[in-house]
């Protein structure tokens, strides 16, 4: 029921349906833009309906509620956005702070749809980010043709994985020894399929990476890789931040360039893992701290024994998930998903 003359979701969907649909004569790229625009129109109205009716009632909604909106986005050829909407259902309940977290994610999606509507006004690289976040994917050839190419000795810091119930994603984090560039190589697998082989965590290789075009480039593909491994495990200290506030400043800069960035690699040197009052965190020499995801804290504490270590971890803006650590000059892979391929 509309209140104060506002449009309900149902009214709006009907109105959206009146916008001219692409025909067989519409050029294919143009056709997709029209489809996506329709999908985003529907998504915006749906989001506004959620806020109008209040988030409190969402705990009663089945997963099918979220799936239905995600399916509309799939139909609209916006698969990345669809996946994000599907995940919203898992954010409801289960955590005392879920309303604030959900609202933040809804806000992030609203920012993305707003950015899409104003895409021509955005810097070219940010336009590329927005298109990828909505679901336009680049082929490897397109990345190789347009991406930033970087030659370095790349250390394979560690791996992590996630599963949205449909597709499993493996994230392999690389760190350039000379350029100190962070690179993220993704591998995807459905069902029980194995991931395509990735460089083994804890090793290093000389090679050339090409980054996906982005205002804050992070995702990359490996263009060339020298066959001979340099060392296993990597024998030297990794480049990284000696101060937690310096790492934080660099992450803030990345977010300022690309506000939808959800994680990055934190390479922190000489930090001490501490367990106090049931919480685990790492502390640098200046007393600054960052929390460690509780499920991953004990292996790190076991490795450090209360002494400083060098840590490679995935930072999601809230907690660190340790991937690897160097203790007493020895490199240890901590990520549970590390594989031994190649």
């Amino acid at each position: 029921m509309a209140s104060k003359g506002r449009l309900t979701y149902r009214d709006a969907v009907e109105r959206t349906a009146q916008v001219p649909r692409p025909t067989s004569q519409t050029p294919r790229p143009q056709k997709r833009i029209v489809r996506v625009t329709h999908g985003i129109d529907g998504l915006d109205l749906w989001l506004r309906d959620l806020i109008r009716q209040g988030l409190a009632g969402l705990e009663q909604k089945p997963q099918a509620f979220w799936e239905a909106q995600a399916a509309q986005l799939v139909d609209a050829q916006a698969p990345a956005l669809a996946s994000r909407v599907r995940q919203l259902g898992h954010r409801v309940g289960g955590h005392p702070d879920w309303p604030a977290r959900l609202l933040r994610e809804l806000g992030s999606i609203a920012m993305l749809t707003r950015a899409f509507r104003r895409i021509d006004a955005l810097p070219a690289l940010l336009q590329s980010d927005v298109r990828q976040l909505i679901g336009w994917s680049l082929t490897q050839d397109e990345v190789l043709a347009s991406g930033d190419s970087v030659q370095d000795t790349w250390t394979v810091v560690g791996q992590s994985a996630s599963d949205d119930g449909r597709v499993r994603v493996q994230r392999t984090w690389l760190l350039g020894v000379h350029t100190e560039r962070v690179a993220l190589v993704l591998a995807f697998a459905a069902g029980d399929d194995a991931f395509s082989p990735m460089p083994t965590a804890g090793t290093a290789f000389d090679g050339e990476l090409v980054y996906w075009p982005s205002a804050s480039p992070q995702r990359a593909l490996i263009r060339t890789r020298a066959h001979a491994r340099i060392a296993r495990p990597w024998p030297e200290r990794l480049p990284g931040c000696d101060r937690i506030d310096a790492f934080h400043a660099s992450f803030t800069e990345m977010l300022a360039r690309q506000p939808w960035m959800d994680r990055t690699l934190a390479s922190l040197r000489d930090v001490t893992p501490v367990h106090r009052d049931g919480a685990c965190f790492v502390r640098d020499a200046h007393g600054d701290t960052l929390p460690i995801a509780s499920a991953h804290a004990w292996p790190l504490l076991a490795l450090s024994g209360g002494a400083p270590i060098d840590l490679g971890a995935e930072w999601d803006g809230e907690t660190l998930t340790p991937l690897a650590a160097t203790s007493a000059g020895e490199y240890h892979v901590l990520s549970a998903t590390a594989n031994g391929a190649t």
Partner: protein
Amino acid sequence: MTDPLTQWALVGTERQDHIASPPEPLAQSALAKLTDLPLEQRMLLAAGVCGVASTAAGRPLPKSDGDSSPPSANETRPACSAKVARRLEDMLRGHHKELLLEALTLLDGAGLRLPHVLLPLALGVRTPAHRRAVRPVLGERGAWLARINPAWAWVTAGDAPPRDAKDRARENGAPGPDALARAIALAEGVLHFEPPVLTVHPPLRGVGARSFWLSQLLSDIPPSHWTSRFSAGPEVLVRAAEKTEWAAALGEGWTKAALLHQDATWLAELWDFWQRCDEKVVSPAVANAMLVQILQRLPAAEAARCVEPLFGDAKTHIDLSMALCALGTPWPESISVRYIEALHRELRAMSPRWRAILTSLRDAATALSPAELAPALASLGPLATDAGPRALVEFIEVLRIRHELVQEIRP
């Protein structure tokens, strides 16, 4: 505490058209801008902006000036090799966990410790046997971790204080002195064929009342009582009992008593009694159960002496696979050698005994004497192919892992 913007979003703009209390400045600024947009969209964008700002700021914990707990002390033992560590990690995660106790014992015997990175897994073991085996190989780092995690307090809690013999006997089910005196009086009465004092019906079918109560009463009395009461050794008393119509009841009662009071001399004599007994007098199932229990309590050398003849054609009342299972691990070398011989023999012959051997392979894999691992792998390894029994392939795989551990875990 929920922030004002989230509180508003929870209620919904349909029920509340204004924010109840001033939001944080960033949200307020975002709400004030973009006035051409619908209220709900402005709220969403304000939440998005605040979310980015919050992620950028992180959730800084208060500055920490230091840690109250001192760092871990230096290790006094070297860590095991990376190869052994990988095996141990697999076992701690449940793969071939049946080998974990042996591996930990080997590690301790070699004066080695677990690598630090495995300590959280190792500290998570639950059974008392595993905890006893883990404790000496945790090293200083393990003790340090146990001090800061209450869930691992078992490491530093120490063992329970020693209990006296009376406590232990009570725990084993032995009666107290008064009850024992009453039981002896009753048993002697029954043995002299006096009318039983108790007239409760026995709960077991096919067992006479006197036989049942005789067996029950005898099971509480230390067998040494009868040795001194009749001034005769167990061999004489057991042989004499065999000639009576109470043979089964006497045998069962004395066996239970010898098990309870851990009387190895009586147990050895009773092993022979049950092996000799006539199937018309004693059911094979009862004989098998008694023999298995006796084996479990006999000293290792004596148990091995009892089991060795079972590999031949001698008449027996005990199931071979159960007898092997009842032996402690590792098996004595003599048993290990006989087992491998029998395995070879039965593999060739595929006789009915093969099934008994086959069912014992799983236990044999972990129980075979470490000294016999290499010879067994050399002779049986080539026979373990995909065309053969799966149990044999698995048996050889476990032997290979054990052999690797024995070779790798050295001071």
